[in-house]
């Protein structure tokens, strides 16, 4: 079963990350890299992506004519997706265990960030939704 693990934060959280020291950032990325390596080795890895900064985000609606109306203004509290991992695992518990490992990735001073990771299963093909 396929799950997506979503890492989100607000603009305030993203600005905080930019204040981390370079070595803290390196250690954080190395820990995330090791998690991906482990998933590749166990055959559970499907995909991962990091997204560009929230300031580059736009929200688009279609006009009646189908023309796009774009807006780049978001409420302060809006959560932005920072990145995701797609995994193919045997159980929901395994998906949550992987999310726990990601949440425990070290932050400043090596302290786990304990970021909340949203875990969602993919809709089955042929679903009525």
């Amino acid at each position: 079963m396929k799950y997506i693990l979503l890492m989100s934060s607000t603009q305030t959280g993203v600005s905080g990350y930019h204040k981390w020291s370079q070595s803290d950032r390196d250690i954080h990325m190395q820990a995330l890299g090791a998690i991906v390596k482990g998933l590749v080795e166990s055959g559970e890895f499907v995909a991962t992506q990091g997204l560009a900064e929230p300031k580059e985000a736009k929200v688009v609606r279609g006009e009646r004519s189908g023309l796009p109306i774009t807006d780049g203004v978001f409420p302060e509290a809006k959560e932005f997706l920072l990145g995701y991992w797609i995994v193919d695992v045997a159980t929901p518990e395994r998906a949550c265990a992987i999310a726990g490992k990601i949440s425990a990735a070290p932050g400043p001073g090596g302290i786990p960030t304990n970021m909340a990771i949203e875990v969602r299963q993919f809709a089955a093909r042929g679903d009525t939704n």
Partner: protein
Amino acid sequence: MKYILMMNTMRAGAGVPAWPRADLQAHIAFMHGVNRDLREAGEWVASEGLSFPDQARLVRAGKNGAPVTDGVFPESKEFLAGFWIVDVDSPERAYAIAARVSAAPGPGGEPLNMPIEVRPIMSAPPQEML
């Protein structure tokens, strides 16, 4: 350049929309048409629909790295319903695709005009993650 188009339209507790079956089918057919056109244009990279928010869990690492799960979300939280990743020549093209998705038909065939969040994907993952 790669963009992700995110349909953040679900709220906590949401399930299958209570639309007439014919309207649901028209909506799905429309989305299939979008995907088919993107594939033919060579712009399709990936698209997925997610299960409904009642199955979402929030996970944090507890002591010793054990996962602590929670399924309680604030009512105002936006849930990702699905996404598309497209590889296009310009941001304007990504916005045009988002507008088409936004105008997917809802009840009675009326365009939903859903907000679609459009974000560039980092051109390559950081070397440390490979």
